[in-house]
């Protein structure tokens, strides 16, 4: 298709409605419609999308930080008196199990109460975004809980009772170690091996060995390696160039997640951030990407959807905004492409790490 450099751009509405999105995320933090009830066990991820979204929009002032902080701490699975549940520690997605509300230990024994790796990741990230110092996080317990989730092949379960295992949870695990500044929570070598074996013949990365390469798993793999500081050790330049090519071919106008699939707003972040980590995002077409993302903006209720004229949801709202942040949309904070939090939040985390180091020495 020929480039239309000089031609008139069809004036769909492509202005970014910041205030609508602020309200959208505020509502996410209040009550969600019943059709989202399948998110009950992962409500903490919704909180993360809303908080991080508001942070990128530079609108965290609308949030009741102390109240949210307490709620997040109430989701921490803490060691019981006899410490027999260390392998189950971390954060829950919500109070759905019915454990009595508590923001401090010791943990309450319950036969089925355990953490979920994605909730530990989003819980820690949310606390950092809220400016918390993580002093009430039992870091050793979180790391013990994480270690209990890693399989022989290097990948991770989501929960100690067992679940599916794939690249998503490798990424969550890497984020947890990175935020806690402690890589004893995982066998890095095994995780790297899992990532390497998940690279497909077409040079994208799948959820596991043999599986179809996918924008989401490619992001999880590359971002995890970047957080570990191992990207160039694992993939020599020739392979990085191949991965770059696979990723950059995902742009159609917005981005899709697999060849011959329709585009979807969230891939503007998954693939965009991967390209940024690989230092070639600047070679994508910003204008077409921006136009696509904004075509999925819901002008009435705020937020973004995967496609135009579809219902917005917290995930696509968040990643739509992050996708715009990557291209430098004005009045949006920069997002760290591997850790997926704002530069401001990252700065706070780095300060915490400095404090921890100073306390140790």
């Amino acid at each position, binding site marked *: 298709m020929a*480039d239309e450099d000089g031609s008139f751009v069809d004036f769909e509405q492509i202005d*970014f409605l910041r205030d609508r999105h602020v309200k959208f995320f505020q509502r*996410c*933090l209040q*009550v*969600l*419609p*019943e*059709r989202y*009830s*399948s998110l*009950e*066990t992962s409500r903490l991820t919704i*909180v993360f999308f*809303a908080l991080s979204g508001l942070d990128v929009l530079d609108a965290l002032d609308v949030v009741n930080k102390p*109240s949210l902080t307490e*709620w997040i701490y*109430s989701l921490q699975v803490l060691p019981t008196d006899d410490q027999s549940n260390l392998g189950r520690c971390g954060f829950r997605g*919500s*109070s*759905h*199990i*019915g454990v*009595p*509300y508590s923001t401090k230990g010791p943990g309450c024994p319950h*036969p*089925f109460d355990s953490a979920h790796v994605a909730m530990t990741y989003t819980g820690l990230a949310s606390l950092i975004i809220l400016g918390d110092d993580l002093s009430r996080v039992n870091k050793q317990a979180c790391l013990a809980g994480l270690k209990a989730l890693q399989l022989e092949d290097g990948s991770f379960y989501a*929960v100690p*009772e*067992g*679940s*599916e295992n794939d690249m998503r949870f490798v990424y969550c695990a890497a984020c947890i170690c990175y935020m806690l500044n402690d890589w004893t929570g995982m066998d890095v070598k095994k995780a790297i091996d899992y990532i390497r074996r998940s690279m497909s*013949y*077409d*040079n994208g990365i*799948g959820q596991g060995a*043999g*599986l*179809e390469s996918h924008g989401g798993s490619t992001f999880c793999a590359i971002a995890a390696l970047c957080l570990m500081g191992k990207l160039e050790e694992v993939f020599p330049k020739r392979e990085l160039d191949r991965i770059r090519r*696979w990723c*950059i071919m995902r*742009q*159609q*106008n917005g981005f899709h997640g697999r*060849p*011959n699939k329709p585009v979807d707003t969230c891939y503007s972040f998954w693939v965009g951030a991967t390209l940024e980590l690989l230092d*070639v995002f*600047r*070679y*994508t*077409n*910003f204008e077409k990407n*921006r136009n696509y993302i904004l075509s999925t903006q819901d002008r*009435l*209720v705020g937020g973004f959807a995967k496609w135009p004229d*579809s*219902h917005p949801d917290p995930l696509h709202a968040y990643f739509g905004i992050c996708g715009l942040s990557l291209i*430098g*949309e*004005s009045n949006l904070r920069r997002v760290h492409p591997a850790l997926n939090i704002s530069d401001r939040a990252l700065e706070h985390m780095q300060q915490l790490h400095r404090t921890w180091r100073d306390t140790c020495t």
Partner: protein
Amino acid sequence: MTCFPLPEMTSKRRDWGDCSATTDLRFIAAATGETCEASSARSAPAVRFSPPRCPDWRRSPGRGWTRGRRKERRSRRWTASRRWASRSPSRGVTCFTVTDVFDYFRALLKKDEKSERALALTTEAIELNAANYTVWHYRRVLLQALQKDLREEMRYITAIIEDQPKNYQVWHHRRMVVEWLNDPSEELDFIAEILSQDNKNYHAWQHRQWVIQEYKLWDGELDYVEELLEEDVRNNSAWNQRHFVVSHTSGYSDPSVLEQEVQYTLKQIKKAPHNESAWNYLKGILQDRGLSSHPGLLEQVLELKETHCSPYLIAFLVDLYEDMLESMDGGQGQEEPLSKALVLCELLARETDTIRKEYWRYVARSLQTRFGSGDPSVPTVETEPQTTPASD
């Protein structure tokens, strides 16, 4: 459904700290005639769910009453909770809500009760929220403790997956039950049925690969892949599955297998030239041996370029020339393949793949840097850095 006399539920409510009620229905217990208040919801400040009303009709601001958008399916949760509510209290039948089901679930979970009524409750809970992984885990515990008929369970799982084919928990549950039964005999047909509804369903393909690899069911899978590619040669999942099967059976080291695959792929490309999946497959099976080492390939592709061109073909040629340059290893004769590659990069940038024009110019610059002699007659490409489009 029998009543669950669990009066301690109401006192539990106090322990749920900073909560607010989203429902406060009363229900009548059929068996005992007892009246109990349903416990309040357990959501704290952040992110609560409104109780199930009738999502079919919704009042959208500015749009009045609408029936919801095209892509939305009728909410199963509505159906389930409506079924509960529709039983007439005057006939003394129990009325439950979503909240009640999960309140009871929480109570049984804490007791770790192993009973038929617990199993029945997990069925109700799954209908209301099939994504609750704790319910599924508890169900597995019960299936084993009560020694339930796993074949019946497989029928149940099949129905759930048909209804919700993108739910992670039910696919994982299926895998567990197949493992317990040690019987994959229904799997390939079942997955094929799911794929007939959405032939790119990642869960289905993942389960399929697991079954095939675990139980060594490679026979016939290549035929299945070819059937799918006949239906839709652009199905990237099918191409991936092709690679999965071949690499785990004959492998690509056998030259006759490799040639067969190359010819098969070129044939598909002729049928549908603008197909990234086919080109990715071709490149993928040849790249580690060197694209330029495959005899006759360059000529075949140059021929295709005349009648079946595409951005993928041109990019393939760039990669082929790059491989040629690499194997020359700084020796003589680099100018020609380099010049050809640079011309093709510019063709991509200017004409055939303009959305990636900055990238193709970056590729050209890299090639020039790595293989160029600094000879001024060789074309070089200058670009300006990209600026963010005006966004205010």
